[in-house]
Structures are given as C-alpha cells and as structure tokens.
C-alpha cells in the first residue's frame, strides 16, 4: 500500500534534480508567476475601481474566486499538467511512440501518467494563491467559522478532482487524435474561471457549469468561503466530481486499448 507514496517521492526527487540543472529557468519562472499573479489582481482592482458589485459579487468575494483560481492552478502546475502534458502534442509520447515504455512499467498506467513529473516551483504559486485567499477573507469582514473552512476545504478538494478529471479526459482523447492539443482548448476555457460564473451570459454560464465545469472548480469553493453555498450545491458538486473522475478514468483506459504504438 505504501508503494504509490514511495514512487511519488522518487518522482519528486528526480524532477527536482532535473529542474535544478536549469538555473536561469528559476528566474524566468519567478517572473512568469509574478506576472500571472499581478495581472490577475490588477484585473479585479481595475474592474472594481469603476463599480461596487457585479451580479451580486463584491470586490472581496471576486478576489476569493481569483484566490481559488490561483490555488487550484498551482496544484495543476505542481504535477497534473507536467505529467499529463508529456502524453500529448506533436512531440508527445503517444505521437512518437515512446508511450510503449510507460505502458511497460509494472504500475497502473493512469497513476504513472498522472504523477510522474513534478514542478516544485508551483509551490510558490500556491503561496501566492493562499495569500490572495487570506487577504480576500480579511476584506470580506465576516467571521470565518470552522464550518465554512471545512466546507471550503472539501469544495476545494472536489474542485481539484474535477480539474484533474477534465485534464485526464482531454489527455485521453489523444489516443483518438494523437496530434491534436486538446489541453490547449481547455487552457482557454479554464482562464474564464478567474471570475465567478455569474458574470457570464446565460448560455456560456450553462456551458461553464455543466459541460466544462469550470464553475465547480472555482466558484463553488469561493462560495463556501463566503458562506453562500447551499448544502444541496455542495452535495451536487461532490456527486459531480466523482462522476467526472470515474468517467474520465474509463475514457482514459478505453483510450489505452486503442494505442497501437508508432513506428518509423
């Protein structure tokens, strides 16, 4: 039972050794993190410099959504994206055929494909995200109860699982269309999660809630923190994230059976 944890530790160690070989990349990553953080914050500040509330969302509660966006995004950059991205694209394993070696390893392929590469710099992004959340909660001015905090953590975990499931499903599609960068499509849509889904018009809001459930990932945890989340929505999103996770795993495993290697 401890074997997966031991493997993850080894994957982290090798990733760190790999990454520290590229010194200058540290500064580039730092710059990119700060830019992502700065433009996100200034975007909210500029908007609320002109108005008090939008669709029932105040400055502080919108900042909460941004904080969740940055936090979940950091978890994604920590291991989900670095691991899954090596499957897709024109130089990806499925396209060039090196996925053979991944399949041959004596562990579950989905597990291996999801945790094998780590980017520890994302921990810095995680700190920035948590910082935004703390400032947002202080500005909300309401007392944070233990119940809110627990619901928030649960919603955040479900949001992360939902995000993982979507990314896994999009990566799994690579077995049907090896060259197509499905994850890029999602990257575009995921950016919309910076703002509460209420700020988008009807049809798009439905799309972001039910088809590509970006709303579950950021808006619901933020609502849990501001205390506006109904128990029904929480249970709904729990069921939703489990269903997505199961669906994505089935899709990925179905895709694995289609893989027929590549030859030169």
């Amino acid at each position, binding site marked *: 039972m401890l074997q997966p944890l031991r493997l993850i530790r080894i994957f982290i160690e090798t990733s760190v050794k790999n990454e520290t070989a590229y010194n200058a990349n540290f500064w580039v990553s730092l*710059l990119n993190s700060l830019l992502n953080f700065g433009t996100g914050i200034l975007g909210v500040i500029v908007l609320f410099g002109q108005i008090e509330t939008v669709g029932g969302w105040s400055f502080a509660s919108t900042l909460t959504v941004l904080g969740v966006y940055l936090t979940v995004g950091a978890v994604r950059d920590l291991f989900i994206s670095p691991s899954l991205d090596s499957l897709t694209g024109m130089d990806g394993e499925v396209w060039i055929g090196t996925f053979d070696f991944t399949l041959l390893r004596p562990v579950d392929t989905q597990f291996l494909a999801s945790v094998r590469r780590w980017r520890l710099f994302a921990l810095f992004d995680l700190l920035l995200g948590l910082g935004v959340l703390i400032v947002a909660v202080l500005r909300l001015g309401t007392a944070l109860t233990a119940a809110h905090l627990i619901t928030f953590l649960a919603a955040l975990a479900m949001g992360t699982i939902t995000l993982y499931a979507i990314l896994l499903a999009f990566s799994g599609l690579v077995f049907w269309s090896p*060259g197509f960068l499905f994850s890029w499509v999602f990257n575009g849509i995921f950016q919309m999660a910076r703002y509460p889904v209420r700020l988008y018009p009807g049809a798009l809001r439905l799309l972001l809630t039910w088809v590509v459930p970006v709303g579950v990932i950021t808006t619901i945890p933020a609502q849990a923190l501001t205390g506006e989340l109904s128990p029904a929505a929480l249970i709904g999103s729990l069921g939703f994230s489990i269903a997505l996770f199961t669906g994505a795993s089935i899709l990925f495993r179905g895709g694995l059976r289609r893989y027929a290697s590549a030859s030169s």
Partner: protein
Amino acid sequence: MNHRGGWALIQQTWLSWMQHRSFFFLLAFGWMVPPLIYLFVWSTAARGGTIGGMTRGAFVTYYLVLIVVNQLTYAQTNWTVGDLIRDGRLNQLLLYPMSPLYNTLATEIAGKVVYMIFVIPITAVLALGLRPELHLSVTQVIAFIPALGLAWLLRFFWGYWLALLAFWITRADSLLSLQDALIFLLAGQVAPVALLPGVLKTAAIALPFRYMIGFPVEVLTGQAAGIDLAAGFAFQIGWTAAAIILYLALWRRGVRHFTAIGG
C-alpha cells in the same frame, strides 16, 4: 534585395500554414479568450446603466473590435526569432540571398490569413448574438486604417527588437512575457484605457502598448476624437519610429556578434 524571392517565400509559407490550420485555429482561440472574458465581465457590469460613459452595447463593440485588432497586430514571430537565434537555425537564413526579415514577414502574413479565417466568423457570430452598438462616421473609418497599420508596425518591430536581445541574453523571451503582461494591462485589454485608475492611465497614454491595440479600437469606435486623436497619432508615430530604429541598430550589431553553436 531579392524581392521576387521574398514574395515566393511568403506564398509558400502561407500555403503550408493552411495545411495545419486546426493547430493555428487553436492558437487563435487561446488569444481570443482574455478579451472575451473582459467583454462579458464589463458588459455584465454595465447592464442597465453606463460605466465611464460606456453602455453595455458600447463595451461589446469595443471588445469585438479589439479581438480582431489584437489578432491582426499580434506578432507571434517575435517568439520564433529568438528561438532561431538561440538554437542557431539563423545560420541558414543568413545564407539566403535575401534579408531574414522576409522570412519573418512570410510567417507573419501566413499567420494573419489563417487566423482571420477563424476569428472573423466567430466575431461575426458573437456580434449577432450580443447586439453591439456602433455609430460609424467616415472620418472614424478613414483614421482607423492608418492607426491599425501603425499599430501592427509598432507591435511587430517593438517585439522584434526585444527578440533580437537573444543575441546577447539567453532567455530574452522572458522579456516578451513581460511585454504581454504590460499589453494586457495597458493596451486596453483589461479595460478601455479611459477606465483605468490614475497612475495606470497615465502610464498607458505615455508608453507604447496602447498604440499597439487600444488606440486603433478607440479610433474606430469614436472614443478617441479631436485632440486625443491627434496626440494619439503623434505618440504612435513616435514609438513606431523608435522601434524601427532600435530594430535596425540591434540587428546590425547582433549579426556581427552572432556565433552559431553545434554542427
């Protein structure tokens, strides 16, 4: 100067890009999303009132024009020029009997054609659904054309001189990330420049970024008129000239400095 060779290269690049269009459509989609987010956010905010004198319909118009202008002026070659220098592929281009600028221009033009095939229909559909408000006058349209042309020149050469720093600095591409962030904030993407708070607004007017995207949009929608229009053009021409001079100076020095590694 071998202009016929240059033209042949432009045609060839364009045709080969059309074969990979789904990839480029994806890229165009990704670039379209940030302005689209702010289109929705601002038009939701302005529902049933005005913000800084702009109605919901005015925000829709502003951002729909911005999506097209942003795509037309986006110089993705700025990223590839640095790569060519870093990995030494610039070697081959230097041996061609024409300036490597043609190579960049070929990619630039091929890109514009492919991206427009994607962006224009989508913008048109959005325009049908979102009911923009636009009162066009002949002067606005006439002023828009040079503003757009200059915006493209400025963004292209501004990015090009930054990319040429790759002759001396290995990770000059991080300057391009910084430039993209500044463009997001100051070029009218996060909000029309008139709605930015104090310091940001002053910075946006003085720095070159607004003249790469926001200014032509303001010209077409009529937000920049009279003295603003004249001052805007003055800034735009000044910054474009500065960008071209920097490009020429860095290119001359850089090529002499350039040594490819590998074999």
